[in-house]
C-alpha cells in the first residue's frame, strides 16, 4: 500500500468522527460539513509531503474548527448570535462518545426529506469522506451537479429541523431501513460491468461494503444490516468472473467459478447462516441466502434450485415486487421445467409494473430457449435488447439472440 493510499484510507475512516465531534461542539451540520471537507482536502495535500501528524484526528479537528470559524465569519448575519460558541476552543479529539457519531451521521444523511439521489451524494461525502470530485467521477455526473446535490441536501436537512442525534426508538427501524437502502444503491451503482473508466473511479462497491461493515459494528444485533453485508459480499465475490476478457457480461451459467473470491464467499456464508439462525427474517437476509446458494454450487449444474425456489417463495411473502416475481419464475422453470415457468410468466405479465418491461422479454426468451423454441427465443432476446437501459445487458441480450440465428 502506497503512502498516499494509506493516508486516503485513514482520512476516510476519520471523516465521520471528525464531523461528529464538530457538530456536537458547535451545531450547524452544514457549515461543519464544509469545514471538515476542507480539512480533509488540506490533509490530503500536506500529509504526503510533511508526514502524518502524531494525532491525525486531533489535527483534522483543529484545522476543521479553524476553517469553521472562517466560514462563519463570512456569514456576518450570524455573527452576534453565535459569537460566544464559535470562538470556543476546538473539541477534545477523544471525547467519551455519548452515542456513536458515525451511526448518527448515516441516519442524518439518509433523512426522509431528501431524494435517494441526494442521500447517496451526501452519505458518500459526509460519512465516506470522499471529495465532491471523487463522487462525481464515481457517479458519472459533473462535479457541479454533485456539489449542488450536497448543498441542497444540507439546506433541506436544516429546514426540516433535524437534529444531530439518533431518532426516537419508534422511528429508528424505519430510519435504519433508509440507510440500508442508500448503502444498497451505492453498492449497485458501483456494481458495473464497464471496465474502461474504472481506473479513475472510486470503487463504490468497496465503499458500500466498508460503510455497511461500519454500520454492522454499531448494530451487531440487526439481522437486516448483517443480511445486507452478506448480500454485498456474496455478490461482489463473483465480480472477477462476471465479465469476459472483452468486457461482455457473463451469466452465472458461463462464469469461471475458480475466479470467485472464496474468502468473501466464506465470510458471507458464515454471516448469513448465523444471522438466519438468530435474527427475525427480512428481505436482505433472504436475498443473501439466495446468493449464498448460488455461490456454494461448485458448478452451475450443481445449483440447488429447489432451495432457491423455496427462498424466492419466502422473499415474495416478505418483500413482494416485480423483479422478485420474475426471478422466482426463473427458479420455477429450473425446478419444474420451462413450460411451468412460461405459464406463470403469462400470469405475471398482467401486473402493470411488469407490462412491457424488457425483463419479461428476457425471461421469456430464456425459457423459450430452454424449451427448444429457438426462433421465438431469438425474437424475445432481440426485443429485450432493444428496450433495456443497460449497455452491458444489451450487449449480452444481443449476443444471445445472435447465437440463436439459424
Amino acid at each position: 500500500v502506497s503512502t498516499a493510499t494509506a493516508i486516503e484510507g485513514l482520512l476516510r475512516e476519520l471523516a465521520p468522527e471528525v464531523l461528529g465531534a464538530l457538530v456536537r461542539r458547535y451545531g450547524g451540520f452544514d457549515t461543519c460539513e464544509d469545514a471538515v471537507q476542507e480539512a480533509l482536502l488540506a490533509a490530503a495535500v500536506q500529509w504526503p509531503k510533511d508526514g502524518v501528524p502524531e494525532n491525525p484526528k486531533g489535527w483534522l479537528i483543529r484545522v476543521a474548527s479553524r476553517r469553521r470559524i472562517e466560514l462563519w465569519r463570512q456569514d456576518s448575519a450570524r455573527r452576534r448570535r453565535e459569537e460566544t460558541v464559535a470562538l470556543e476552543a476546538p473539541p477534545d479529539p477523544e471525547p467519551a462518545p455519548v452515542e456513536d457519531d458515525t451511526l448518527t451521521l448515516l441516519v442524518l444523511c439518509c433523512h426522509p426529506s431528501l431524494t435517494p439521489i441526494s442521500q447517496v451524494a451526501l452519505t458518500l461525502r459526509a460519512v465516506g469522506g470522499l471529495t465532491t470530485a471523487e463522487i462525481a467521477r464515481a457517479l458519472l455526473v459533473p462535479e457541479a451537479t454533485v456539489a449542488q446535490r450536497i448543498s441542497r441536501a444540507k439546506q433541506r436537512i436544516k429546514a426540516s429541523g433535524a437534529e444531530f442525534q439518533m431518532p426516537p426508538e419508534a422511528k429508528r427501524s424505519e430510519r435504519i431501513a433508509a440507510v440500508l437502502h442508500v448503502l444498497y444503491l451505492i453498492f449497485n451503482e458501483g456494481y458495473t460491468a464497464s471496465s474502461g473508466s474504472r481506473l479513475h473511479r472510486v470503487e463504490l462497491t468497496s465503499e458500500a461494503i466498508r460503510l455497511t461493515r461500519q454500520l454492522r459494528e454499531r448494530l451487531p444485533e440487526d439481522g437486516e444490516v448483517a443480511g445486507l453485508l452478506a448480500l454485498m459480499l456474496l455478490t461482489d465475490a463473483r465480480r472477477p468472473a462476471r465479465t469476459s476478457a472483452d468486457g461482455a457480461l457473463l451469466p452465472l451459467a458461463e462464469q469461471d467459478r475458480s475466479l470467485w473470491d472464496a474468502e468473501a464467499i466464506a465470510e458471507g456464508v458464515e454471516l448469513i447462516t448465523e444471522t438466519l439462525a438468530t435474527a427475525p427474517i427480512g428481505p436482505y437476509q433472504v436475498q443473501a441466502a439466495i446468493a449464498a446458494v448460488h455461490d456454494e454450487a461448485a458448478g452451475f449444474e450443481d445449483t440447488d434450485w429447489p432451495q432457491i425456489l423455496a427462498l424466492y417463495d419466502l422473499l415474495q411473502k416478505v418483500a413482494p415486487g416485480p423483479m422478485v416475481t420474475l426471478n422466482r419464475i426463473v427458479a420455477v422453470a429450473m425446478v419444474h421445467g420451462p413450460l411451468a415457468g412460461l405459464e406463470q410468466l403469462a400470469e405475471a405479465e398482467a401486473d402493470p409494473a411488469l407490462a412491457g418491461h424488457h425483463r419479461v422479454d428476457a425471461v421469456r426468451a430464456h425459457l423459450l430457449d430452454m424449451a427448444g423454441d429457438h426462433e421465438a427465443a431469438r425474437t424475445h432476446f432481440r426485443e429485450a435488447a432493444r428496450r433495456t437501459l443497460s449497455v452491458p445487458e444489451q450487449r449480452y441480450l444481443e449476443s444471445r439472440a445472435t447465437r440463436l440465428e439459424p
Partner: protein
Amino acid sequence: MKYMILIHSNPQSRGIWDGFTDAQRAEGYAEYAALGEDLASSGELIVAEALADASLTKTVTVTDGKTIPSDGPFAESKELLAGFFLIECDGMDRAVEIAARVPETELGLVEVRPIMQLSGDDV
C-alpha cells in the same frame, strides 16, 4: 436515472417565436432561465444547451478516409432539434414533470428519452 429532454422546433413554433414582441420573448427566456436554475439548484441538471440555427449545421461524411463536410441538415426536416436538457432524477414521472415546464410542450415538440447506463444487474 438519466434522461434527455429534447426540444424541437417546427415551422409553426418558429413562426410564433418570430411574431413575438420583445416582452413576450423576454418572458420565454425567463421561463427557460428559471427552469435551468431550479434544476441546477436541485442537483438534477447535468447540462442544458440551446442549439444554434439549423442553417449553421454541417453534415459530416467520411468516404475512403476523407472527411467531407456539407452545409445544412441531412434532410429537409421540418422538425429540428433546437435544444436539450440532460438531467438525472428519480424516475420517468419526475422527468416528465420537468419536461412539462418547457414552453414548447404546448406545441407537442418536447420528448423525454431515458439514457443508457453502464451498470447492469446480473443476467
